[in-house]
């Protein structure tokens, strides 16, 4: 499916013109957002059940805890989405997440200025990790899956070097702010996600380089022939993936107020991020989907665990149940096979 919208709208178009084009484009908009809408509906239904069954009900604490847990995976899933759009993959997101957690627990201490510098250093590290991945894929012409596999080992080594043993700490005021909620009861983590979508993801998606990423994922050859900046677009997706992973590492540090070079944690976040991307309606073949769907995909995955908790399911059965839900969710995508007219289209 080609998911590159028609031309970016010129600035000075009349409202009527915009409405008219929206009317004619709506089937396209709907079909490109279908995955995200399904994930959102699923999340809403599951979260309603969760809150109504929870002994504490719809309280600030319950919502806040769920938001923080979900936002961690949502950030890593957003990171994963962007390279996946170009039919790439970043297997190092989990390890960048762990590395930046260890870095934050070392640097983000002391007064406000130190903390601010620490935040900047963490984000720059994420960008640098992403830039290395991007350089290996674009300039080194390595397959993304194997290149990021190798770099994840390097990033984990860095994390171990910074934190041979779990520990460290971060500025408590900052941590409390990031993991708390605003006066209206809205968790700061949700505001962070919303801000990233409004001021990060949407401008990116509407920019030339963001559209180029979709074009590359749909057909790299056609994109190249059309003069799309293929190399720059691919490089930027990995850089952004590094940045979003670093944001997740920052949030993790605020939640745990310490750092730990935990290989299992990094590995599980990498794999869960792929699952969240798929549940959120992004195609692993690239060219269709988006980061908003992945956010809901991440929240769906996290809410499953919460649901098992409130229904008092034996914790031993949880991993099995999670696996079954994941397979059913991706299996539903196979219903499209029933509509395929030419079986040749099934094969690449």
């Amino acid at each position: 499916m080609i998911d590159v919208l028609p031309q970016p709208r010129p600035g000075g178009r009349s409202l009527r013109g915009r409405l008219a084009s929206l009317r004619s484009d709506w089937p396209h908009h709907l079909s490109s957002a279908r995955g995200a809408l399904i994930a959102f509906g699923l999340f809403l239904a599951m979260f309603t059940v969760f809150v109504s069954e929870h002994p504490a009900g719809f309280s600030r604490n319950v919502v806040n805890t769920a938001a923080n847990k979900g936002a961690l995976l949502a950030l890593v899933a957003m990171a994963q989405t962007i390279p996946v759009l170009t039919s790439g993959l970043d297997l190092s997101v989990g390890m960048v997440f762990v590395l930046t957690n260890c870095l934050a627990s070392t640097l983000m201490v002391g007064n406000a200025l130190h903390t601010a510098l620490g935040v900047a250093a963490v984000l720059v590290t994420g960008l640098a990790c992403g830039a290395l991945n991007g350089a290996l894929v674009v300039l080194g012409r390595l397959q993304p899956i194997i290149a990021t596999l190798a770099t994840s080992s390097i990033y984990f080594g860095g994390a171990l070097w910074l934190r041979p043993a779990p520990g460290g700490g971060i500025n408590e005021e900052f941590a409390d702010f990031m993991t708390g909620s605003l006066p209206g009861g809205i968790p700061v983590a949700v505001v962070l996600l919303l801000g990233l979508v409004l001021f990060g993801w949407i401008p990116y998606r509407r920019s030339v380089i963001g559209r180029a990423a979709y074009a590359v994922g749909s057909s790299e050859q056609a994109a190249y022939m059309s003069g799309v900046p293929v190399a720059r677009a691919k490089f930027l997706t990995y850089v952004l993936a590094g940045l979003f992973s670093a944001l997740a590492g920052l949030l993790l540090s605020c939640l745990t107020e310490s750092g730990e070079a935990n290989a299992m944690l990094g590995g599980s976040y990498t794999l869960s991020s792929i699952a969240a991307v798929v549940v959120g309606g992004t195609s692993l073949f690239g060219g269709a989907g988006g980061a908003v769907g992945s956010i809901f995909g991440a929240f769906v995955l996290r809410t499953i665990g919460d649901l098992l908790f409130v229904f008092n399911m034996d914790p031993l059965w949880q991993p099995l149940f999670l696996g079954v839900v994941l397979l059913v969710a991706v299996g539903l995508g196979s219903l499209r096979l029933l509509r395929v007219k030419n079986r040749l289209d099934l094969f690449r």
Partner: protein
Amino acid sequence: MVATLVRRIDKPVLAAAGGIVLLLAGGGLYSSSFLSPGYLLQQLQVASFLGIVATGAMLVILLGQIDLSVPWVITMGGMMSVAAAGWARPGGWLAIPFAVVCGVGIGLVNGIGVAYLRIPSMIFTLGMNAIAQGLMVVHTSGFAPQDRATPTMQFLSVGRSLLGIPNAVWVWAVVGGLTVLLLGRTAFGRRVYAIGNSERAVFLSRVNGNLVVVGCFAASGALSAFAGMLLAGYSTKAYQAMGDPYLLPAIAAVVLGGTSILGGRGTYLGTIMGVLVVTLLQSILGIVQMPEAGRQVIYGLVIIAMLLAYGRGEKSGF
């Protein structure tokens, strides 16, 4: 004669062989015991477990797919073999076949999901990994199983019989020999390469490619479970997450050996070389008492360096 032989061996295999020589030379400079036959045989024994896993991974990668269910299928193989050993006393003859059957079961589901449901292998095998993990957690209640490996399993993995060479190496040799025959001398093997190159062309040739895909995933499951059984024999018991350290090294070994991650190209000789490179690299980094952090960094850097040397894609420009 020699010239044709050299021409038949492709560049990645030669480069990997060069890597092995470099690693051995470097290790030998550090400590002369590194080049002793005893140590080298021990490395071969350790390599054979990875080699068997990598064989399955290679079959799937040749199709242009990937099998991420390897870690918990290995663990399943280990746990099911010791459990079956407990059920079928005395002798525990059931242990090895039961482990392999469990692996084939997971592999068949993987293959059906990828071939018939057309779900990307990366996500489907990930889900099956979670299911295998879930089944094992339920089976063991989250603890390490108390059952012990049977004498046959220990004989296969730690024993040394013929010529003083570890039996595990002989097992790998048999698995490897069968794989070479399968890939090079059978229609099935040709179809594996054909699917990796163009699944459309295979479909248009009226070949049932889906059966080949299912077969490769089943073989990968069987080999992973078999390796898990050997690992359980090696340490006399099975434990949680015993397969986790094998997924990434297996993929790295296959790719370092020159198999294209996009499928359709690769030789088994290359995979053997890749397995030896990865095993020696891990061993040397362990021996020089480098802290774990440095080991991880060097491991990643060496793989990137080798890939940059010969694993690069075509120059784009279409």
